[in-house]
């Protein structure tokens, strides 16, 4: 079978594995083009942290060198004046550090975000482009919703990693190192005392983080249960009411709601315990500093300013530890997301086909199916030994009940799927040997579901293909009789159309789709006709368009309306994956077979 098992890809619960080295490496490879920026960012961080950390030291100098003299009634007039001017200088120096810290902190944050956003944009684009190149079988098996999630939400998680985590990690480490260095430079004994407290803070944080992560995980699960329940109960409200199950449904909802409240309360409880715990350690630290520092001061070992600076530093020391603990969660979910993203990026893209080029002049248009068998899913054969030939320039139509396999023939010609048995030849060459891009360009397909992109009529016909000029668009619109309604639009070719928008009727959309196909002047035309409700007038236009399109090229069509294929050179009747009848319309009508029944059904209105 041509298909791979894609199901495992959609495992939403891909366990938060240990940081996967490979993913991490790959993630950082996206950052390497910005290494210069990152060096500057690192310098700015060092500078801004440095400026901030110098401030308590300045206050210490101010207290020890100036204030102690200023407040001392014993000091002389000149000493006072000297101290005052020194104090002013220190104050202005302090102001300078504040200003530099402001500029560098902002500059750093700005640059980091700027690079981070660019990196994210690159990842998002690469991922999306990769998805577009994946084969049809992939899309048949991978839920669309998950693909969207990969491109949007998962990249968003990584975004957080780049923006908040990187800054925090850098800043926190530099701050910690800085504080330790400054403290040791002031007084080694007190510095060691502060360091002794660190394991306590780390242990409390780690224990708390572990616990709270579990709660968060459970909360997310319950919240998605709430969402599922809400969505299905709102959609199924009628059923609930008609079966009079409000009470039961309400109880079920309450159960989940209650569960969420329990988890929520536990979250509050945990935080309410954790924060005070840290508070206690902090005040223990300060009290200890006062005790030990005060004694040192009494012994004349340290000045009061140094003691004060220590009190300041100890408060700044805990913050980065707490923040580092917090970033751990984000890193983990970013790892999960990047695993998913890279896994998707590793999916094999569509085969680009063989080396045979489509000639400049296009395909002649001979199509041959030789004993083709095909199944989308194992053992569910859609086409069973189908053989037919279309001569260059012919117009061949396929008819039959829904599910007979008509559309599949069209899909196979475009090589959306590869066949399981048999051979498909175009101009006597196996379609697998053609360059896929050229082959698809040479074959024009009018699809059943007309997909309009948000944009103008012009761009919807040209699809911004380089080989399609504005003149080609107008010419195509004229050929398929779309020009008459386009000319009536307020902005004509520049009129904006919207997907699912009601600007155009279904008949008009169908004509647009014809024009879109014809505009690139394909040498072979495939028509998968829509059954939408089309008024008689448009139907005549469509019929005329089809005849014009068929006039100078091979065309094969799936027709739901027998009227539109009145001029076909050959009609092939499909039934349950096999060809049951073929011939011209008259021949088939004379046969009194399946075609005749189909014919009667369409012409005898009830």
């Amino acid at each position, binding site marked *: 079978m041509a298909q791979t098992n894609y199901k495992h890809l959609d495992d939403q619960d891909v366990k938060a594995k240990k940081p996967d080295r490979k993913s991490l490496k790959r993630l950082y490879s996206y950052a390497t083009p910005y290494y210069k920026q990152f060096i500057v960012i690192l310098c700015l961080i060092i500078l801004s942290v440095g400026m901030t950390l110098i401030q308590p030291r300045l206050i210490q100098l101010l207290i020890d060198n100036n204030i102690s003299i200023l*407040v001392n009634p014993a000091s002389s007039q000149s000493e006072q004046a000297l101290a005052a001017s020194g104090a002013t200088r220190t104050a202005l120096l302090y102001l300078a550090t504040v200003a530099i810290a402001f500029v560098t902190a902002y500059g750093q944050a700005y640059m980091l975000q700027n690079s981070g956003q660019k990196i994210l944009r690159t990842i998002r*684009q690469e991922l999306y482009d990769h998805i577009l190149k994946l084969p049809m079988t992939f899309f048949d098996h991978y839920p669309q919703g998950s*693909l*969207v999630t990969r491109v949007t939400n998962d990249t968003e998680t990584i975004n957080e990693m780049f923006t908040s985590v990187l800054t925090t990690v850098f800043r926190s480490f530099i701050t910690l190192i800085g504080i330790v260095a400054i403290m040791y430079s002031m007084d080694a004994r007190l510095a060691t005392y502060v360091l002794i407290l660190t394991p306590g803070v780390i242990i409390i944080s780690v224990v708390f983080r572990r616990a709270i992560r579990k709660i968060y995980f459970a909360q997310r699960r319950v919240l998605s249960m709430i969402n599922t329940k809400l969505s299905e109960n709102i959609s199924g409200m009628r059923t609930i009411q008609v079966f009079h199950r409000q009470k*039961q449904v309400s109880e079920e909802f309450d159960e989940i709601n209650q569960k969420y409240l329990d988890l929520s309360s536990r979250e509050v409880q945990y935080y309410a315990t954790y924060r005070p715990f840290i*508070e206690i350690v902090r005040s223990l630290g300060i*009290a200890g500093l006062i005790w030990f520092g005060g004694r040192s001061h009494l012994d004349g070992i340290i000045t009061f300013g140094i003691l004060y600076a220590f009190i300041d530093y100890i408060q700044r020391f805990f913050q980065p530890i707490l923040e580092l603990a917090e970033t751990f969660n984000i890193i983990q979910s970013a790892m999960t997301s990047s695993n998913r993203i890279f896994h998707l990026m590793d999916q094999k893209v569509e085969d680009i086909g063989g080396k045979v080029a489509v000639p400049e002049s296009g395909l002649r248009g001979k199509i041959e199916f030789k004993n083709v068998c095909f199944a989308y899913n194992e053992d569910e054969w859609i086409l069973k030994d189908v053989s037919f030939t279309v001569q260059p320039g012919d117009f061949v139509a396929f008819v039959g009940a829904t599910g007979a396999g008509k559309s599949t023939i069209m899909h196979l010609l475009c090589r959306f799927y590869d066949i399981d048995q048999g051979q498909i030849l175009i101009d006597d060459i196996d379609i697998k040997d053609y360059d896929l891009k050229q082959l698809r360009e040479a074959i024009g397909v009018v699809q059943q579901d007309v997909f309009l992109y948000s944009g103008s009529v012009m761009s919807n016909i040209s699809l911004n293909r380089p080989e399609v000029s504005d003149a080609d668009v107008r010419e195509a619109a004229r050929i398929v009789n779309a020009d008459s309604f386009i000319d009536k639009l307020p902005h004509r070719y520049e009129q904006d159309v919207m997907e699912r928008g009601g600007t155009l009727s279904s008949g008009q959309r169908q004509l647009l789709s014809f024009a879109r196909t014809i505009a690139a002047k394909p040498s072979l035309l495939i028509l998968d006709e829509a059954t939408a409700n089309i008024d008689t007038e448009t139907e005549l236009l469509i019929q005329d368009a089809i005849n014009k399109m068929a006039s100078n090229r091979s065309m094969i069509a799936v027709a739901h309306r027998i009227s539109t294929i009145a001029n076909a050179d050959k009609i092939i009747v499909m039934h349950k994956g096999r060809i049951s009848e073929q011939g011209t319309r008259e021949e088939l009508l004379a046969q009194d077979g399946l075609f005749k029944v189909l014919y009667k059904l369409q012409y005898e209105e009830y």
Partner: protein
Amino acid sequence: MREYRTILQFMRANKWRYVFGIFALLFVDAANLLVPQVLRKFADWAQFGELTLERTGQAALAIFLLGLAVAAGRYFWRVYIFGTARRLEYWLRDKLFKKYLRLDDSFFNQQRTGDLMAHVTNDVLMVRNSMGGGIIMIVDAVFMTLFTVIMMIYTVGFATAMVSLLALPFITVVVFSMSKPLQRRSRDVQDTFSELTTEVQENISGINSIKAFGIEENRSESFEKINKKYQEKNMAMLRMSALFDPLIQFISGAALVIFILYGIKRMSSGSLSLGDFVAVLNYLRMMVWPLIAIGMVVNSFQRGIAAMGRINEILAAEPKVKEAASPSKISKHGADDQALKIEFRDVCFRYADNLPWVLKGVSFTLEDNESLAILGRTGSGKSTILNLLLRRYDVTSGQILLNGVDVRDASFEELYGKIAFVEQESFMFSRTIAGNIAFSSDDNYDPETVKKAAEFSRVASDIEAMPEQYRTWVGERGVTLSGGQKQRLAIARAYYQDAQVLVLDDSLSAVDTNTEKDILNHLEELERGLIIVSQRVSTVQRSDQILVLEDGVISQRGTHSALLEDRDGFYARLHQRQLLESELREDGGEV
């Protein structure tokens, strides 16, 4: 703030929690305000050489005890204020959901599911935040600011306090003036994000067009535009939000410098001690948060008010179809209290005064245990008849009687207990197969009856082929059921109800002919009342009474054979056509 009246009831019931929480918060604030005083005393002792070992110990102990007090207080205010906010979230969510359960089709037809969900999740969250963090902000903004200023004046006198506070109010100004634009920019980011999502969604669903035309590059460029826009919008927001912290740091730093410069003069005159200096440094730092809070509180409550407003709108909505206050009993007491006779008397219906009539004078009677079929084109009003019977809407004029009791006077419980409905688009819930059939919580059902129901609707063999059989989970990530399986499960669900009348709204359309025949046989053997709506003659032909509905009017009625006699009638022509179709389906191909 009037919007908050909805939660008054909750607030009243929880008033002690709020009182206690706020009290704890004030206690924490007070303890915090004393810390600089201890440091002040300590510094002054140090300055004047009065520091002793004993005093050092006292100061250390005081700091530690104050720390303990703060810790204890924090625990309580977090539990009481944040904890209560979480209860409020639960309470509001429950209230909203119960309201949804009471509202009817006329409400749901006008609302988008996404919006209705957002009220229960996002809006509730916003109210929770305003009543949790918001309260903290108010208390801190008011009391913390006030008390810190008082303590500063107490410490260093009015003039010095005022001068050193000169720069700080800019914090409030910055926060306040940034919060609106920041919110707008973040909404821009969200909007662009949903644009991005839509783009991806649309293109992935149109992937075969993209491949057929080989326009991958064009689509990639289109995505690139939005991708770029998203990056820019993000930057626009981040440019501003990145300013927040540095700017506040800058202002508080500047305030410190102003204080030092002013303080120098007062120190030489002896009116400012080292202790005063140390205390003010600490107070200035403590002032930062309450001033931020002042700037944020307005915004937080504005969002809360907007969310509350949306919630109130839902809570104020009333269903059009209401259960009778004192319902009449449908069941007759006596020998056959289960019997149900349904009568439509000249029923007319339209959705609104300015809309066309959907039903124009429909009358019929369904005796107990009889079968009735309604046949007609899409839009002829078939489903409306059922909707009226099941009180999805009420008649505009005329009457629907159950055993002579107007359907509007019956209790919902009795009405829906007597009539079991199989919808056109059968809805399956994410629970087990058995849970779906019994329509009950997942282990609260009678397995025998469930099995019987599944056999009745010919879905038993499908279920038994599933990996976990009746315990197979149906839902988003469970098995995907085919249209026919869903319809048969819905029939099983209706059977399980053991109601007096079964109503099938075109519910056999996705079932193959043979299975349909079996199910129709089972329905006949059941000997209960049956109303069956269909577009297929084969489905309705065995009914005791067939109504042909055209444009809201019964155009033909009678049994199958009687209706066929009118050879040019709608019924006979449809019959003819469907015979042809089945000929095509059954013996076409193998020629």
